[in-house]
């Protein structure tokens, strides 16, 4: 009897395992198999010549990244840009939550729908299109300059797109927020609809104001979702993408806009140096890993539980 039960239990777990197997295979193929490509970082690989063991160069490309002060400075600036821009994004990642909360308070349903659509739409516009919008609005004879000139605010056109200095970080964050805010709030809107209505009713009976309900019911209920998303974002700290920065980059803002991904693209991929770009992306993965463990440790310390 016991043996039958045991084998039944075993069969159950095999069944469960089989259910998840296809996904494990997918993850292996798409997330682990590509790691094989790291091998290129140790070779002098130059297409169209086929890959050959004769071209083994060891850690040469890693060393070449830091072989002179200029290069160290460059990498330093690039890392700074990456960290600052990611930090701004992370630091403001509560914005979508707040946006969702406020939108939820809108009583007029049609108005709410319109707002939601209008803010979600930019997410589906590609960065190339966003830049052409930016160019038409902000070039020397664009809408913005014409408007300001007609109002008598300026006499000479302002070259918005030629902006340089650390302000670039903020501008880029604004573009990103414009594009992403609505989309990012969807998850929170879904979470809000999952909050038990009885809590609000009880609060109302107790005479809580709308602000109090937001502060003591909605936001605390959203916090677990917020923290999970935050964790995922931290692991992606270095992956702030490159399309946005690629289309917006020019000679004037290059110093502050060049993030790690764009740097890899500008210095290595564009010049046909596969090996060097692999070397830089490897470093990137390592830093990401460290950050993830750091975030995990911090969570353990602060909230008493870890994710890994």
């Amino acid at each position: 009897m016991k043996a039958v039960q045991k084998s039944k239990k075993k069969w159950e777990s095999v069944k469960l395992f089989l259910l998840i197997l296809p996904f494990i295979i997918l993850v292996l193929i798409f997330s682990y198999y590509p790691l094989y490509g790291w091998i290129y970082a140790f070779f002098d690989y130059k297409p169209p010549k086929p890959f050959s063991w004769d071209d083994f160069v060891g850690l040469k490309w890693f060393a070449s990244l830091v072989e002179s002060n200029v290069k160290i400075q460059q990498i330093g600036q690039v890392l700074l840009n990456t960290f600052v821009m990611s930090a701004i994004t992370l630091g403001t990642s509560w914005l979508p939550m707040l946006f969702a909360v406020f939108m939820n308070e809108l009583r007029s349903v049609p108005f709410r729908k319109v707002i939601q659509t209008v803010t979600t739409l930019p997410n589906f516009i590609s960065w190339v299109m966003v830049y052409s919008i930016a160019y038409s609005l902000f070039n020397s004879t664009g809408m913005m300059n014409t408007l300001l000139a007609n109002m008598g605010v300026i006499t000479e056109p302002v070259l918005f797109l030629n902006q340089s200095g650390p302000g670039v970080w903020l501008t880029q964050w604004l573009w990103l927020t414009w594009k992403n805010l609505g989309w990012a709030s969807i998850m929170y809107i879904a979470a809000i609809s999952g909050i038990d209505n009885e809590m609000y009713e009880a609060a109302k009976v107790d005479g809580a104001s709308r602000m109090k309900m937001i502060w003591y019911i909605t936001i605390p209920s959203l916090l677990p979702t917020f923290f999970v998303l935050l964790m995922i974002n931290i692991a992606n700290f270095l992956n702030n993408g490159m399309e946005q920065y690629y289309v917006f980059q020019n000679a004037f803002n290059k110093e502050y806009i060049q993030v790690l991904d764009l740097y890899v693209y500008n210095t290595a991929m564009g010049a046909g140096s596969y090996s060097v770009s692999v070397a830089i992306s490897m470093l990137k993965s390592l830093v990401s890993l460290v950050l993830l463990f750091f975030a995990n440790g911090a969570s353990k310390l602060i909230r008493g539980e870890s994710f890994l």
Partner: protein
Amino acid sequence: MKTKRFLCLALVAALATSSLVGCSQEETGGTSSAADAASAAAGSKADSDADGGSAPEVSHDEEVTFEIYDVAANYQGEQIGWYGKVLKDTFNIKLNIIAPQVSGDANSLYQTRTASGNLGDIVILDNADMQDCIDSGLIMDISDIIYNYEHLAEYKEQIDQFNQSMSVVEGGAIYAIPCNMNNNGPSAYVAETAFSAPRVPWDYFEGLGCPELATTDDLLNMLVDMLEAHPTNEAGDKAYGISMWKDWDTNYSENAALLTYWFGQQVKDSVLVGYDNSIVPLTDTEGGYYKALQFLFKANQLGIMDPDSATQDWTTVCDSKMKQKRVYLFWYNWQNGFWNTPEHGESRENYMYVPVDELVYYQQADSYYGDGRVWGVGSSVDETKKLRIMEYLDWLASPEGLDYQHVSLEGFIYTVNDDGTYTLTKEGQDRFTTTIEVPEEYGGGSWSDGNNQVNQWIVGSAATNPNTGESYDPSLWASSIEMNLTATTNEWMEKYNAENEVKYLEGTDQLKMVANINIPLATDSTDIALIRSQCGTLIKDTSWQMVFAADEAEFNSLWDNMMTQLEGLGWSTLTEYDTEKYQPLIDARIAAAE
């Protein structure tokens, strides 16, 4: 509990991403297998006879699509319109153009395609890349068959010369056919205009009293006066003396690099090669690049520079500025085509050369031996397709094919005179300046959309057409020259006492001709390529910053700062490498001059 929820969420996220990745993978797989199927279908009927001294006959029953990997193309996709119809009707072929320039990331497209082992059925590459591709077995040896084709055989001398000069080619193998060859000889130059020289609207210049310009400063001051007199175009849009664009930049600012021609030099990677056979680093402060930056910087200081220069692309500046007469200084000779027409000539509005005494113009002779790019046949095409391709290539080099490529449709764009020479029709004259609708019988659509999008020729337009005794280039026909004798040219000729720009510059000894040489040079090692790209990014960015610098002091400090950084990136290694790399070119020029 919360941990579990997190794990669930994380798993869902991971699966969503992996399934998305899966989708995109499948998609690309789908298209490539479709292409394979198409090429397999194309190759199913074999009808070949490669032996014997004459070109083999091939059947045109089956439609074939040639995939052309084309570094010169500005258009990606199927060749459409009137030229597409000509190819379809003549050979039953379609062209699928792969354009790295359009793809957004030329280098990675090249890398992925070469890594996959199939670059294209036909490839058009720079000389150096062609050597690499031959070395990697991506290109087919066509020596067995090429000279069976009558028109290709006419260029045997040039084709042999080029293939033998490649270090990777052994024996009598033929892999590459140079681009833009001609039949006029290695030091001929047939055009009426120099490749680069300052040109401005004639009526405006004449309105200023045709001031004598001794230096580039005079040129700038003249442009200031011109802008003062004509601050906008006729439509009222703001005009500029100089407008530039950022998207052609490579390892330097392309606009500044072009202006080095005015100082008797040409930018070759990290060095400047002079007409006097000198080689100096790009960053030589006596060199043309520094002078060009100074020129552009002064232009900006004088307020005649388009402030959007650093953020706009070529299409914007060409369509919304050059074609609208909002830019007063043109510097490429082909730029004239965006404005100059017989009508504008008659109303004295055409852009014309204005002499600047201190300048000497670097000018390369017509590309008798080819221009640095080559055609090749992909090594993975099958025998049937190879014959179809060779037939097409031969047609490209034939007078009939060249008429289509360099002129266009007989009866619509040009007509044949009694003596056999050609004359452009009204449509022909306007083909670059306005949108010409092509009649349905010729394939419909607009003329420029249907024009040959390969944008590269085996035989250049400078070559002489044996049927007419004139060049293929319509602007050099006697009929066109006569037609272009407008108020503008007549006044210009009278004022400067010369038949055309080139004749004038030859008279003043300002046109410095260098012989045509076409030899493949070494490609970069990974180390050099890395230095090149890092230095290039720096030079490019600094160049733009210098042009828009607030004052002389900032201009100088930007330059000094760049020089310090360049040293840290290995600039001297790079210039030494390039000096050595271009020495064979100099040697060949000296030999050709003797």
